[in-house]
Every structure is written in structure tokens, then in C-alpha cells.
């Protein structure tokens, strides 16, 4: 009964979406306020019914109702409750319900928070949002019904891939979807602006908080996924340039560019056409990612079950949604009046450079991901593009981006003075050299790129400090009021510093861990000790243990440095019963300067056990860096909370620091 309610709720949501996609749009064109006023309640209605469907599916999972085919093939009665719930989105159909629920959630949020937007603009935005929902609801109902019954119902389900039974991965998809789908709001805003033929600073101010929200979740989702790969897959890697990883990385790169170009629209009323295009492209890349994962068109370790029918459906949807919006762009973009002028050396100029580099980076990832497919379609030849391609092209771009990132915030708007900025930067150059030298002292020789990595990371940190000193007038105004001045700066500016600092921390982590990881593969008998880096790994014993739906062997390691005990580590090798599968549970002990990472393997039959022992310098900095970026985004968002949908730019209080226009 409950699953039928869920199915019915999806159909009702589709009806609401059809109404929401047509009536308010007609109303906005005719100036009919009654039709315009329908948009917000219809958006809330869609969210309500899709949530009801999601709740029904969750109920079927929680009660292990195996008469629902989806539950039978993806769940198991012995599974811990957490994974019964997260199993809802661990499969194609369920994850699609979550996708649509997130989409309608954003529609509902726009309806709730967008009351101060011009009502016709709000109506158009919500109509576009509803059109996207139509596409995905049809996809669900026509090709991927999650509520299909199974007769006769089996007594037991198939279980969920044990690799996916992990808290990190359980929350990876919801975060990622909040990011992917959050970009739909920017998309809808862009299309609505194209329909109206007007875009200006107000538009940028409306759209930027939504892009920030999406960007925050996307970053957090990607980081969580990579962290999962790091501790669960058991070979210490954290990024593989897999097509599906790239599918989430491209929208993130694009959204980063959009965040920055929207600032230029907001502050200077320039770059408008480009920003609209970016807003369209960001969400298009999200859709493309969805298509790649679910059509089976590329091979990936992540791909969902392959089904050509679904592939055709999404391709048609992509064609209408992206093709339609790009056609609208081609037709209407020239009607958007060009904005203010600025010189090449200026904050705007720096942000244009930022956009250029980020767009090229996005294009490179897109090329690397799609090249095998395009070549196949054109010539029938098949190739694969491995990490070497991405590393070769991505690293030089990142170096350029980080160097520019240090200078950009120091430049003034409209016309900057590179000489003046250069005068501020000798401390940054000095710290860059010291940083590279410090890395040499700690870890010894390494490839040149490693020292370049350290130098640019420290360069960026120093440039941020210089910027903070500038904006708080450190040394130029009385020290007693320093905190007051620092507190008086807008939160968005602290957000920017935090996010940029996160970038530097990330670069440190990637560079150090990629260059100086120490690794030993050994056969150990209890009582033996192995030296890895500065650490002595003592192997104590291996014991059998039992979990709720698995049995395991657990190794016991005691790690010390120079005779002082540092940590105890218990790596496991688990054997799950349903479905039968073995997983390794690496034991990781994070220290500030690096992670201790141990994996226990198979016995050699004569009393020894194979084990892999790693010392990975600064690897936690990778996730700490992303966390800083996410916090920076949240800080910036909190500054803008009151400005979501603010009616007039003038209503914003002018900050006290008048000498420098605050950067965002």
C-alpha cells in the first residue's frame, strides 16, 4: 500500500510540475498576477509530493519490504539500520528520487526565500525549475520506477555492496546532489534573465548565494568521496581521474568560475554575457555528469547498471534542456547591454584571468573524459586517457592560477596598479622560498615540482596575510583598534581569505603526500617490528572478530617513534556474508605531519601475514584544505544571508573601510 502511495505521489508531483512550468510563465508574459502568484505554491507542492514518494521508498527499505523489486535487489534484513536507510540512494532508481527531491527542495527554497524578488522574475525562475523537474520525473516514471512490485516476494534481499556500507559513502551522494542540483537555481535564474533580456548587479546579488550553497555542498561531497576512497579502498589513493569523479569535478570548477565572475557583475556591471553562459554551462555539466553515470556510455568503476533505453531518454532530455538554453542564449545574449569598462590590470582583470584559467581547466577535464568517446564516434578507434594526461595538463594550470590568486585580491577595482601590489609582495616571495627550503629540510630531496608546489602554497599564504594586514591597516593605524577593524570587515572577505587559504593548504597536502609517501609491503610474524619513515611499526597479533553482517580478521599494530608510543592501529580484513565479498578496512592514525596507514592482508600459511604500512606526509591537509574552502563559503554565505533577494543595491550598508573596496 505504502509503495503505491509513493508511486502515486510521483505522478501528482509530475502534474504539479506541468502546471508550474506553464501557468506562471504565461502569467509573466501577460502580466497576469493571479497566474504569477501560482508559482510559489506549486513549487512547494512539487516538493511535498516528491518528499512523500521518497518517504514511502525509505519506509519500504526500513521495513525490508522485499515485495518492492528495488528493495529486494538492494537491501537485506540483517543490514544495520543506517545502511538500510542509505541503501535508498545506493542504486539507480532510489538515487534518482533523491535527485528529484533535492531539485524540488531548491525550487521550494527559492519560493520561500525569493519573496522579495520581482514576482514575474520569480515566477519565470520557478517555471524553469519545474521544467527540469518534469524531465526527471518522466525519466523516473517511464524508465526507472522505484516502486515496481515483485511477485512472488522473495524472503530475503540481495544486500548492498559492502564497500558502500560506510558512513562516509552513505552521505556522499546527498551532499553531491545538493551541489549538482543546487546549480539548477543559477541555471533557472540565468534562463529567466535571458527571457527578460535584463541582467545587472541585482541579478548577480540574487544568484550568488545559491551558487555558493551549491559550491559548498559540491566541494564537501567530492571531498567526502575522495576521503572514502582513501580509507576504504585500502591502497591509499584519493583521486583517480575516473570519468565519474571528473563528472563531479567539472561542475565544481565551473561553479568556482561562476562565483568569481558573478562578483564582477555585481560590483562593476561587466562580464554579464559570460556569467550567464557560465551559469548555463555549470548546470549543463551537472546534467552531463548524470548522463555519463547512468547511460553506460563510458566505462567507469562507479557506473550504475547500464541500460540503453535510459541513455536515450537522458540524451533527449539533455538535447532539449542544454540545447534549448544555449539556443536561447545565442538568440538573446546580444540583447544584453555590455557593461562597464576596466583595464587589464585591475581586480576585474584578475577575475577574468581566474575565469579563463578555471574554464580551461574545466575544458581539459571535459576533453580528457570525453575524448575516448568522441574518437570512438568519429573514427571507431578506442583509447583511454589516464592520470598522466591530467597531471601533465592540470599542474601547470594550477601553478598559474595560484600565482595569480596571490596578486588578484591586492589589485583595486577598475584600474589597478601592479607596481603598488608588487611593493607589498616581497614578504610573500621570501616566505615562498622559506617554505620550499623547509620542505627540503624535513623530507630531503624531491622532484623540482614538489618544491614549486611548496613555494606557491607558501606564496599564497603570505599574499593572504599581506592582504589581511592591508585591509586591517596593520602598522598604519593604532594597534589597539586592530580587532575592531578586523571584526568590521565584512564576513564575505573573511570567507574569501579562508577559502583561498584552503586552496594553499590543499596544495601543500597534495604535494607532500604525492612526493614523500613512504611505503613498505612486508610479511610479518607477530612480534616483528618494521621501520617506515621515522616510525617503528610493531606487529602484535591477528585476531578473529565478528560484526553484525560480516566476520573479520583484525591485525594489531603498535607504532612508536624513537621509543615513544604513538598509536595503536587495528586494520581489518572483512568478509561480508550477503553478498559475499571481502573488503579491507585500513587503520589510519592521523598526525599533524602525516597519516600512519596500515592494511592487513592474507596469511602466508606459515605464521606470517602480509601487511602494507604507509607514512603519508600532510595527506590530511588535502581534506583540511577543502574543509577550509567549505567554511569560507559558509562564512561568505552568512554575510549575504540578509541579502538573498534584496530588492535594491543601495539598501546595503556601505562598509566602513572605504579605501579598499572589499573583495568577495
Amino acid at each position, binding site marked *: 500500500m505504502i509503495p503505491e502511495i509513493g508511486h502515486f505521489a510521483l505522478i501528482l508531483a509530475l502534474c504539479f510540475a506541468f502546471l508550474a512550468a506553464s501557468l506562471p510563465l504565461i502569467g509573466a508574459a501577460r502580466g497576469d498576477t493571479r497566474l504569477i502568484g501560482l508559482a510559489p505554491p506549486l513549487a512547494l507542492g512539487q516538493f511535498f509530493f516528491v518528499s512523500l514518494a521518497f518517504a514511502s521508498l525509505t519506509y519500504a527499505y526500513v521495513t525490508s519490504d522485499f515485495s518492492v523489486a528495488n528493495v529486494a535487489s538492494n537491501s537485506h534484513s540483517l543490514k544495520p539500520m543506517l545502511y538500510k536507510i542509505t541503501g535508498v540512494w545506493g542504486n539507480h532508481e532510489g538515487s534518482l528520487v533523491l535527485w528529484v527531491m533535492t531539485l524540488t527542495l531548491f525550487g521550494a527554497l527559492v519560493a520561500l526565500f525569493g519573496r522579495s524578488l520581482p514576482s514575474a522574475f520569480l515566477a519565470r525562475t520557478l517555471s524553469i525549475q519545474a521544467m527540469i523537474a518534469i524531465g526527471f520525473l518522466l525519466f523516473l516514471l517511464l524508465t526507472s520506477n522505484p516502486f515496481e512490485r515483485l511477485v512472488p516476494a522473495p524472503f530475503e534481499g540481495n544486500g548492498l555492496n559492502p564497500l558502500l556500507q560506510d558512513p562516509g559513502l552513505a552521505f556522499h551522494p546527498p551532499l553531491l546532489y545538493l551541489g549538482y542540483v543546487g546549480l539548477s537555481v543559477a541555471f533557472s535564474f540565468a534562463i529567466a534573465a535571458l527571457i527578460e533580456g535584463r541582467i545587472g548587479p541585482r541579478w548577480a546579488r540574487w544568484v550568488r548565494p545559491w551558487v555558493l550553497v551549491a559550491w559548498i555542498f559540491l566541494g564537501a561531497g567530492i571531498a567526502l568521496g575522495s576521503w572514502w576512497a582513501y580509507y576504504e579502498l585500502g*591502497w591509499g589513493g584519493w583521486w*583517480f581521474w*575516473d570519468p565519474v569523479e571528473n563528472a563531479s569535478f567539472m561542475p565544481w570548477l565551473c561553479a568556482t568560475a561562476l562565483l568569481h565572475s558573478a562578483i564582477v557583475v555585481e560590483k562593476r556591471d561587466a562580464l554579464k*554575457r559570460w556569467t550567464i*553562459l557560465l551559469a*548555463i*554551462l555549470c548546470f*549543463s555539466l551537472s546534467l552531463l555528469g548524470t*548522463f555519463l553515470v547512468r*547511460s*553506460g*556510455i*563510458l*566505462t567507469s*568503476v562507479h557506473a550504475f547498471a547500464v541500460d*540503453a533505453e535510459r*541513455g*536515450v531518454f537522458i*540524451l533527449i532530455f*539533455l*538535447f532539449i534542456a*542544454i*540545447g534549448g538554453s*544555449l*539556443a536561447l*542564449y*545565442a*538568440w538573446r*545574449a*546580444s540583447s544584453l547591454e555590455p557593461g562597464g569598462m576596466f583595464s587589464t590590470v585591475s581586480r576585474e582583470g584578475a577575475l577574468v584571468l581566474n575565469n579563463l584559467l578555471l574554464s580551461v581547466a574545466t575544458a581539459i577535464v571535459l576533453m580528457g573524459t*570525453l575524448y*575516448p*568517446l*568522441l574518437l*570512438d*564516434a*568519429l573514427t*571507431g*578507434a*578506442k*583509447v*583511454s586517457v*589516464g*592520470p*598522466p594526461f591530467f597531471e601533465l595538463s592540470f599542474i601547470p594550470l594550477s601553478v598559474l592560477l595560484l600565482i595569480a590568486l596571490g596578486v588578484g585580491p591586492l589589485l583595486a577595482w577598475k584600474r589597478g596598479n601592479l607596481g603598488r601590489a608588487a611593493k607589498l609582495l616581497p614578504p610573500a616571495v621570501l616566505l615562498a622560498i622559506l617554505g620550499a627550503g623547509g620542505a627540503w629540510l624535513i623530507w630531503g630531496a624531491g622532484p623540482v615540482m614538489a618544491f614549486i608546489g611548496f613555494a606557491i602554497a607558501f606564496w599564497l599564504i603570505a599574499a593572504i596575510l599581506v592582504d589581511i594586514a592591508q585591509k586591517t591597516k596593520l602598522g598604519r593605524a593604532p594597534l589597539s583598534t586592530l580587532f575592531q577593524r578586523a571584526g568590521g570587515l565584512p564576513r564575505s572577505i573573511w570567507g574569501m581569505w579562508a577559502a583561498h587559504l584552503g586552496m594553499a593548504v590543499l596544495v601543500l597536502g597534495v604535494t607532500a603526500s604525492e612526493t614523500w609517501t613512504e*611505503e613498505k*609491503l612486508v610479511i610479518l610474524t607477530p612480534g616483528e617490528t618494521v621501520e617506515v619513515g621515522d616510525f617503528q611499526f610493531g606487529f602484535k597479533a591477528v585476531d578473529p572478530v565478528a560484526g553484525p553482517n560480516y566476520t573479520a580478521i583484525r591485525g594489531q599494530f603498535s607504532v612508536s617513534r624513537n621509543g615513544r608510543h604513538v598509536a595503536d592501529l587495528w586494520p581489518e580484513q572483512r568478509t561480508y556474508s550477503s553478498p559475499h565479498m571481502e573488503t579491507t578496512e585500513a587503520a589510519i592514525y592521523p598526525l599533524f605531519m602525516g597519516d600512519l596507514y596500515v592494511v592487513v592482508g592474507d596469511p602466508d600459511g606459515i605464521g606470517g601475514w602480509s601487511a*602494507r604500512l604507509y607514512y603519508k606526509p600532510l595527506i590530511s591537509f588535502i581534506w583540511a584544505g577543502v574543509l577550509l574552502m567549505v567554511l569560507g563559503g559558509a562564512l561568505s554565505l552568512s554575510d549575504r544571508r540578509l541579502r538573498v533577494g534584496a530588492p535594491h543595491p543601495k539598501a546595503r550598508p556601505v562598509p566602513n573601510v572605504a579605501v579598499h573596496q572589499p573583495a568577495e
Partner: protein
Amino acid sequence: MRPAFWVPLILFLGLVAAFAVQLASGDNPHDLPSALIDKPVPNFDLPPIRMGEAGLKSEDLKSGEVVLLNVFASWCAPCRIEHPFLSELAEEGIPVYGLNYKDRPQDVATFLRELGDPYAEIGADNNGRVGVDFGVYGVPETYVISGDGRIMYKHVGPILPQNQDDLRKAIAAARQPEPQ
């Protein structure tokens, strides 16, 4: 209507056309044209990955019995998926030769220590030249080679559980017309 604004749309339409061709062809990305099927293996002579071991040359593959040639790399994630199956075949007595594609010696060594080494011999194709001669489309790839050194079957991509039967059949078929 400036022409520049049409560029994104045109690029996108090109992409859609390519996707459509790919979907319409209905073929699995793992299936491949077989230019080299039934042709003798190209001539090559590769150094080993570790000093002091034997390398791999084309004569090694003309051993009189059916052998496998597996193209792999330590940076290739899907290679890890098929690795246990290759080990299984090696244990059954089917010689598996490795073509290590564009890799670094220390990385391969780690890879093999970690997962085990099913390979009878490995040739290090550091610059991918031999890969070009074989028409390697991507890593991993697996070739079934007859006793007289002809390529009988080619599998592109990891050998997933659903491909294992096909590969075993190909090996059995390659053994059928016994070399006189």
C-alpha cells in the same frame, strides 16, 4: 545576433551527435573492431621492469601453446579488478604475459607486490611503442595468442565477471585447431 554566441550551441550539438552515434551503435564500449585478429603478433623486444630479469619479445609468445598477453599499468584502476582472474588463469597453468604500458618501474613493483604477480614474463613498454604496434586502445587489454603466435581474440577493458566465460571460450577455441 553575433556569431560568437552560437559557438556554445554548435559545440554542444556536435557533442550530442557523438553521444547519439555511440548510443545508437548499441555496442558495448568493451567490444572492439578486430584489425589484428588472426594476424601474427608484431615483432618486438622489450626490456624487463627489473634489472636482471628476462624481458619480453615476440618469440616468447610463439611458444607452441595458447598464451595470454595482458596490457596493464599500475596507474590503471580497472586493472585491479581483473587481476584476481588473471592470477586464477595463471594458477590453472595458462601462461600470462604482461605488457607494462607507460609505467614507472618502482610503481609496477609496488603494484605486483601488493596484488601478486601472475605474469610469466613482463616487458616494459615505457614509451608505448609496442602498444601502438598492437593497436592498444586503452589499458587494460587482453589478447589470446595461439601456439604459432597469432592473435586469436582481443578483450578491451577489464575482464569483468561477465566477460570471464567469453575469455575462457576464446582460449578453448584457440586450442581447437591443434598445431600439426
